[in-house]
Each structure stands twice: as C-alpha cells, then as structure tokens.
C-alpha cells in the first residue's frame, strides 16, 4: 500500500520484486510488523527494545526520516479498513503517537 501510495518509497527497495503479491514484500512486511509488536510489548522502553534496529537504520539503511510518517499513515489506513469501529479518535491518537515514537527511535542515532 505504501509503495502504491508513495512511489518514492520504492527507491529503498531496488533489489526487491515490488509487484503486487510479492513474496519479498510480504516477508518484509512481516518483519516490520514484528518489530512494531516488539515495541508495543516494551512500550516504556521502545528505544531499548529497538536498539539494534535503530543502529541498523543509522549505519546501513539510512532511510530518510520523512518516510516513517508515510508508512505510519498507511498502517493507520489499514487498521481503519480492517477495524473501523475500533479506531475511535482516541485510539487513532494513541496509535499515531506510538507510530511516531517508533519512527523517532529508528532515526535517533542518525547523527
């Protein structure tokens, strides 16, 4: 969804098959979702829980910080689609805050 909505995000995956239904994309999405679960399970120390990922993004991946917001928006849209009644304004605010916090942690060691 992110690749379709924000084509510029594809630039970070030149080595991937990005066609609809791609196994690589699915596997990668699973990885990302897993990290979000990890962060949620350590919500009082997201920086600690994602420390290695934080290093990885700073030293190797160096994804521009703006892109975490784009992915976050897509996550919220998917939650809205699958659980519209759960996504009250308060839950939306909370989820958005969480996703922003994760993005901040992942870019925290950039400089």
């Amino acid at each position, binding site marked *: 969804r992110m690749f*379709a909505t*924000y084509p510029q995000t594809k630039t970070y995956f030149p080595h991937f098959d990005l066609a609809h239904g791609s196994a690589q994309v699915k596997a990668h999405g699973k990885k990302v979702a897993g990290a979000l679960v990890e962060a949620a399970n350590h919500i009082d120390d997201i920086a600690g829980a994602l420390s290695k990922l934080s290093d990885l993004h700073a030293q190797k991946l160096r994804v521009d910080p703006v892109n975490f917001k784009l992915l976050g*928006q897509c996550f919220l849209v998917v939650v809205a689609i699958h659980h519209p009644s759960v*996504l*009250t*304004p*308060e839950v939306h605010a909370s989820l*958005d805050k969480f996703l922003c916090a994760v993005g901040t942690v992942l870019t925290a060691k950039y400089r």
Partner: protein
Amino acid sequence: IVYPWTQRFFDNFGNLSSPTAIIGNPKVRAHGKKVLTSFGEAVKNLENLKATYSKLSELHCEKLHVDPENFRLLGDILIIVLAAHFTKDFTPACQATWQKLVGVVAHALAYKYH
C-alpha cells in the same frame, strides 16, 4: 483529538476540553461542514485549484495565520476517516489518489502565503 495542538486556531469554539466535548461541539460540526464543502469544490475544479483556493489561501495566511503543515495533518485524518468508512473499497489505488488530492489542496491553500 489526534493532533490537539491544532486547537490553537479555535479559541472561540467553546468547549474543546475532551474528545466527547469536541465531537458534540456544534461549532466544530459546522466548521467541518465548511471545510468538506470546500474539498467538494476542489474535486469539481481539479484543473484550476490554485485559482479556486486563491482567496482562501490569502485568508489562511493573512488573517488566520495557519501553518500550512496543518493542511497536511487534516488531509491525512480525512483519509483515515474515509478508510474506516469505505473499508475494503478503499484500495491502495484509491488511497494513492486521495493522498494526491489532499496534497494538491494543501499546496493550493499554501500557495498565496507570503
């Protein structure tokens, strides 16, 4: 509710002290209607957005003093509400189109800023 700092522009709207208060506030409802009607105008004037929003842009800059970043925030919220409403029909292609629309509307609203 999601971006409480945006309330700074609505001091005269009365009670915005809680999500319940905001949702029940008639001034909020009326203003939302105004904003969405304006989006409707945008859809009808896609080839000419800058002209369509020219006066509104000046208003938001000179009188309302709204940071254009807020237009982006509103656009993203609108899209999530649409997603919750249309669920399966809100395909990636649909979202992509809507993100483009809210983007150009935000751009047109910011165009006359000086």
